[in-house]
């Protein structure tokens, strides 16, 4: 046999795929793809025993959930699906109804003078209320406010909220703030 120049054997790459496969399977199994989503809310600063500010009755929109998850709006029984429209009516108050929220003219940067509603939502619940029911109500309230913002943005800037630039979004948010006050839970019959 003639002496050949010895070739360095090629590394077999056939098993490379298998190794990659193994790693893939590991990552597939350990992956949790769930994106965390939820309702954002800014809690109010804690102040030691402060007296509740006096707010005119017409400016409050009281939503009450008792321990059986029944709902009341301003003292009357209501359905969850009513909340959004009742809230919008309360904030907008187009006919200046003296039973709905009062509006005051304010100058908002980026919008100019605007008759902003002084209304505040007061969300009250019992210690025995289900978190799920509470979240349903929270969601409806936020939905109402978001719709108000969207409608106003469309009317003022001709675009929906999410298409506006940041300064405009801030201005619209100022015009329709998320004014939800959450009282300490109490025993509600």
């Amino acid at each position, binding site marked *: 046999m003639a002496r050949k120049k010895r070739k360095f054997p090629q590394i077999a790459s056939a098993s490379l795929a298998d190794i990659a496969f193994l790693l893939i399977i590991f990552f597939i199994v350990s*992956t949790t793809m769930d994106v965390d989503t939820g309702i954002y809310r800014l809690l109010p600063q804690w102040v030691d025993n402060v007296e509740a500010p006096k707010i005119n009755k017409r400016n409050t929109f009281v939503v009450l959930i008792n321990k059986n998850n029944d709902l009341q709006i301003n003292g009357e029984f209501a359905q969850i699906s009513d909340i959004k429209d009742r809230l919008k009516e309360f904030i907008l108050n187009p006919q200046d109804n003296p039973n709905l929220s009062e509006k005051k003219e304010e100058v908002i940067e980026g919008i100019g003078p605007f008759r902003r509603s002084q209304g505040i939502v007061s969300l009250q619940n019992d210690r025995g209320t289900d978190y799920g029911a509470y979240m349903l109500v929270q969601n409806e309230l936020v939905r109402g406010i978001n719709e108000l913002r969207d409608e106003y943005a469309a009317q003022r800037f001709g675009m929906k909220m999410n298409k506006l630039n940041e300064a405009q979004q801030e201005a619209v948010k100022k015009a329709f703030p998320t004014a939800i006050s959450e009282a300490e839970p109490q025993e509600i019959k």
Partner: protein
Amino acid sequence: MSKFNPKGGKKEVPAITTASLPDIMFMLLFFFMVSTTLRESELKIKNPNLPFATEITKLEKKSLVCYIFVGSPRKEYTATLGTESRIQLDDNFATVSDIRGYIAGEWEKRDEVDRQKMTVSLKADEKTKMGIITEIKTELRKAEALKINYSARKRLVEIRNN
């Protein structure tokens, strides 16, 4: 490449090359590696049934989020703890009074720039009673962790009168 075939024999179908198979696998691998978030803590409560909502936003930076879990304990722990809703912080059961310490610890872990953006994600089961939730909220307010995210799942249909 010539059309002239000197052997005149049957043409063989060339074997499909598997040389690029590893590359494809690696591409998939990288995809999963990038999109993976390894579960950080073991849940000692039952996986909470999060409430549904439509007006939800995504939590953007996971490193700025700390979690509070609320729900009934897993089967292994029901013998000692019962089925009442419990709070879990990190890997352990906790009480409402532990929250302030936990928030302070999380606060310490982060840079000064990020501290203001720290968000608390409240992952609570929808069957939880509001009593415990309110206590948690009060503690968070006292701990000055005011940014809160009520964790919820996306619901596509609007609710109607039941």
